[in-house]
């Protein structure tokens, strides 16, 4: 029973503390219900503690990815507010070159995420994970920005011709309901699409960095 409870802990945790906890349980004598529950909660805590389950280089790579994604999201959010609220163009569907530029900047950022991740951790899987997290973050938070703007500045956003036409075609009862419903698709598409794209571009970016001895040694062992 003690062995089963110890197997509930993450492998990395067991490698470090397993033998001494096994010895402690031997010293404490028969396993009580209270002690067993305490071990189960401890195992749960260990799984939820990223410092235990995720190696330090991977955490560093993810941290860098999130910083890049957060900066990008802030820049995009400013652009979204400017084009939809501050300088809205109700009669025009043409946003000029900005959407294309925004996508290109996003792609470059994913590539950069791969390079930054490669400087702290070796292995294309880690670079892909960092890129995917950056992409998913950007997708979710960009959709969140649109959600906030659509609901806070509804009177301004609802004057856009595309929104008026969309509401008429949707048959929905209110502009707010239409705008929020209309965001579900982009939320899923951006989150999944950016995550996949982020992973691919980050692997490409990471491949341009020559792994150092430090990153190779700090790379997590498989298994």
């Amino acid at each position: 029973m003690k062995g089963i409870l110890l197997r509930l802990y993450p492998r990395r945790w067991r490698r470090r503390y397993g033998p001494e906890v096994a010895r402690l349980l031997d010293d404490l004598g028969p396993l009580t219900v209270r002690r067993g529950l305490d071990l189960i909660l401890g195992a749960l805590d260990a799984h939820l503690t990223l410092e235990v389950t995720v190696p330090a280089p991977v955490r560093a790579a993810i941290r860098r990815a999130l910083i890049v994604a957060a900066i990008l999201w802030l820049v995009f959010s400013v652009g979204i507010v400017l084009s939809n609220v501050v300088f809205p163009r109700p009669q025009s569907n043409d946003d000029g070159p900005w959407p294309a530029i925004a996508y290109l900047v996003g792609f470059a950022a994913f590539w950069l995420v791969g390079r930054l991740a490669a400087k702290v951790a070796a292995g294309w899987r880690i670079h892909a994970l960092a890129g995917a997290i950056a992409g998913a973050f950007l997708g979710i938070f960009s959709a969140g920005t649109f959600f906030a703007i659509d609901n806070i500045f509804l009177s301004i956003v609802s004057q856009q011709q595309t929104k008026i036409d969309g509401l008429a075609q949707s048959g929905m009862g209110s502009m707010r309901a239409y705008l929020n419903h209309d965001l579900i698709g982009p939320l899923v598409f951006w989150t999944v699409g950016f995550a996949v794209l982020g992973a691919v571009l980050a692997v490409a970016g990471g491949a341009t960095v020559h792994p150092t001895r430090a990153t190779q040694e700090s790379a997590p062992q498989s298994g």
Partner: protein
Amino acid sequence: VDGLGRFSDPAVLILTSLAGGPKHGYALIKDVDEIARTTIGPGTLYAALSRLERRGLIEALPEEERRRPYRITSTGAEALRNYLEHARHVSAAGLKRLQAFA
């Protein structure tokens, strides 16, 4: 110690115990039981020990027969001292105010 969340209480007890010298898990549980009349479970003990170790407040010593002793570091001693002095200040203020109920 403040950043240890719900493990701050066991962490303070562990640091207090280790201030008296290095101890392994079983000795820690017995010592804490003696000084604080509270029993720390093995899961809670090692959750707190791993946090204290990662923060450099304690350090592991070489293993002896599958028992690994831990020792408080100078950073850990300073953190414990700060915590206990703050606790003493709060305790003194509370006891003084409670005199009104005597």
